[in-house]
């Protein structure tokens, strides 16, 4: 495949500091409005975790000039909309028919400029309740739902911003004070800490004019200082967590290169060749040949400050996590010693190239073109990274992938978590320390 894969755009920065990016794609009469605020759970502090995400909920409750639910006028105009918070950023998006572009810009700019006058204690309390339900539904009441919480807590020290998950601690959520909302908004929700991307049925100059008209009047603030923190694991940490599950599962996590850093793409390719699809080394061994496991997965969880490489496998009934782990270790050692085969590199690249192309199919939503332009702009400081992003994969070699496995997937610098059915801690890897998360 040598088809050119490009994502053309134009960018300007308004005097108040708001970055505006426009990408034209006139095939369907829709426009994606995508707004990133460079704030996430990494900007929280211990004792108040979960605040960035709770705040995202409040952004849908009304602003000064439209003091009602955010969904109503937009859904009535045919918009699809949502928002999400992760450790690094909070994003908000609408995909609107071209006829409703100004409405979406009006609504987004109103909550950026004029949120606080509409915010009441009552709305705050309701959304705190909704978020506690979200936590129960997606974490507490879901099998293996607490795994990432336990792993993150062990990978990162208590004062590291990745020590906690974005959903936050339930006690912290209950302890939130309404008064904290104001300073959080003033610190992080202003043009200089945001990036707006418009993609779709919009002429570029018109896009800039509209962005200036709706957002230009909002005063810029001070760009928050970026967050730095270090973390390392100096030994193999073994943990066990009991859960309401039928079958035990083992997780392994290692520190890995930050998003877009040297070695990040290699780690991604490594995850694929280890555990993506039947051809992958671990699937083939554990699930296909030996039938010891029901599944195996691996991925490079790329993030701004630092990443982690995560591997997981669920034991087939009657099979032991110890044996599964020793086979996993054997296969990792093999890649670290010999590197991947040429055919594995070819296959990995073919998949990466196809996925870059698939990402160009849609203008909006999570992962669509508008979201990607903002990701590059906010996390790289420049939206012009699509081709370079792909080039990282094209540049990877057998040697660079092998070096990556050697450097990062060390057995004596990882967290290994066994999740076992309640009352059956004997099924965990030997020497595992009981961990409790709630």
């Amino acid at each position: 495949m040598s088809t050119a894969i490009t994502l053309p755009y134009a960018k300007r920065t308004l005097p108040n500091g708001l970055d505006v990016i426009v990408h034209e794609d006139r095939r369907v009469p829709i426009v994606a409005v995508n707004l990133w605020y460079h704030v996430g759970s990494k900007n929280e502090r211990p004792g108040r975790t979960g605040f960035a995400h709770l705040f995202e909920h409040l952004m849908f409750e009304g602003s000064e000039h439209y003091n009602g639910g955010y969904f109503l006028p937009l859904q009535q105009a045919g918009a699809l909309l949502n928002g999400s918070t992760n450790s690094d950023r909070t994003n908000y998006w609408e995909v609107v028919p071209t006829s409703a572009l100004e409405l979406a810009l009006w609504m987004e700019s109103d909550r950026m400029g004029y949120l606080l006058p509409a915010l009441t204690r009552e709305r705050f309390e309701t959304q705190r309740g909704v978020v506690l339900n979200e936590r129960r539904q997606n974490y507490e009441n879901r099998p293996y739902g607490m795994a990432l919480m336990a792993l993150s807590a062990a990978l990162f020290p208590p004062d590291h911003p990745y020590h906690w998950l974005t959903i936050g601690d339930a006690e912290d959520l209950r302890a939130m004070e309404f008064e904290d909302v104001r300073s959080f908004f003033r610190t992080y929700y202003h043009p200089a800490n945001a990036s707006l991307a418009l993609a779709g049925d919009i002429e570029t100059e018109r896009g800039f004019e509209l962005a200036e008209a709706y957002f230009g009047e909002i005063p810029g603030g001070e760009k928050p200082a970026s967050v730095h923190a270090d973390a390392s694991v100096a030994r193999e940490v073994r943990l066990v967590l009991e859960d309401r599950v039928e079958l035990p599962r083992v997780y392994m996590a290692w520190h890995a290169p930050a998003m877009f850093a040297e070695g990040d793409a290699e780690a991604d390719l490594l995850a694929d060749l280890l555990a993506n699809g039947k051809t992958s080394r671990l699937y083939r061994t554990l699930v296909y040949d030996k039938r010891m496991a029901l599944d195996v997965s691996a991925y490079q969880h790329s993030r701004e400050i630092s990443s982690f490489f995560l591997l997981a496998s669920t034991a087939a009934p009657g099979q032991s996590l110890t044996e599964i782990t020793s086979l996993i270790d054997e296969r990792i050692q093999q890649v670290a010693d010999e590197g991947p085969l040429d055919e594995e590199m070819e296959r990995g690249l073919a998949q990466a190239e196809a996925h870059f192309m698939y990402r160009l199919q849609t203008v909006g939503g999570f992962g669509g073109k508008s979201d990607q332009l903002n990701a590059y702009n906010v996390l790289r400081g420049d939206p012009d990274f699509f081709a370079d992003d792909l080039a990282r994969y094209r540049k990877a070699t057998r040697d660079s992938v092998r070096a990556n496995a050697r450097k990062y997937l060390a057995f004596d610098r990882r967290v290994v978590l066994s999740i076992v059915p309640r009352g059956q801690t004997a099924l965990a890897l030997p020497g595992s320390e009981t961990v409790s998360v709630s």
Partner: protein
Amino acid sequence: MITRVDRSRLPALGPDPVFRFPDIAHHTLGNGLKVRTVEHPGVPVITFVMQIDGGLGADSAGREGLAAMTADMVDEGTGSLSAIDVSDALARIGGEYDVEVGADATTFTLTTLTPFAGRGAKLLSEMLTAPTMRDADFERVRQLRLDRLRQLKDLPPAVAERAFLRLLYPSHPYGHLAIGTDVALRSVAREDVVRFHAATFLPWRATLIVVGALSHAELLTVADHAFGNWTGEERVLDLPSSAADFVADIATSPQLAVVPREGAAQSELRLGHLSARRNTPDYPALLVMNAILGGQFVSRLNMKLREQKAFTYGVRTGFDWRRGIGPFSVQTSVHTAATAESISDALTEMSDLRGGRPATAEELSIAQASLTRGYPRNFEIAQQVARSVGQLALFDLPDTYFEEFVPKVNAVTAADVTRVAQTYLDPGRAIALVVGDRKATEDSLNGLGFAEMHVLPPAG
């Protein structure tokens, strides 16, 4: 110079964009395979959708899970290619392969880049028409599905779906999940799968939809080269009868059932009853009615249970459309302490829409607008277009369907909403299912006024 934005009112909307669905070209290959092609220029991507009549509804009693098991064997080897080789071949063209076993049909989807169109089609054809079905692969796949079933016991939404279908369809081929049941899967033999494949994977029972950045003629050539020689099994076999033709027993009184899940942080709820077929002429009115009741964020039920009471992260209502009669249901997961009140609120909202508190003009216009104004975005990606054309084939809808959708929805009146709510919603025969902590909810559930509470076997 830019004028200041007027924040005293929301900006007016521009005129609604005109929506044109691309032309669908119809072809029939010599072997009887129906082919539909749609040109989708732009990104060099092509999607194949093969839709084969007979989904989970074709499972015979005692063989629940057979259709899904058969579908699963499709990527487990063909000709000289082993299961591993198939996976490798798909990866080398960056292929995204997916199988969906629906109530009335099984749908295989392959997306790849247009330079790989011919290779992708050939591979898909070999997989579908000549799966090897080796014993060892069959045993492995069946065991994986049995283990998966075991894991689903830990997953409250899956437990709820499964129990709810059985309550809705006590003796009907729609009354199970595609994955089937433990007992049935254990009794399925490789020969059953071979026979089911031979009886259902036949060119004249299938529709192939090809959508991509090529011309109709090129798309047809790709399809014909790959699938033109497919003959299907020539022996005469028992064709499964259509599940849509089975008569369903319709419940006549309300029921309450609980699947105990001690210590659960939330209660998973389902509430509803059998209601409508996809081809009902009331379809547009039912969509509008559903949007008002619980089909969108600003619906009555979500505003009450999430935004006013904070009982849940979200609640949705919807129709599970099938060729035969399908259910209307409320779906949510609520804080344990809010279980009974959530059920009671949902029943009240269903009942109110039937007349006590009919749809207002504003609710009607919000529902219509949200269904119609954003309609074009449903057809942005090749795969969306291909699956949409698949729906036309599945439900015998005309090619003009998508362009008629917007005017038909906009023609729905408030009186229509009340009428379809009266006809298709009936709290008097609703089935309420709770997957949750029995002890913590029992007293309040008993206060709801159901004649009795059926306690089903625990989830896990």
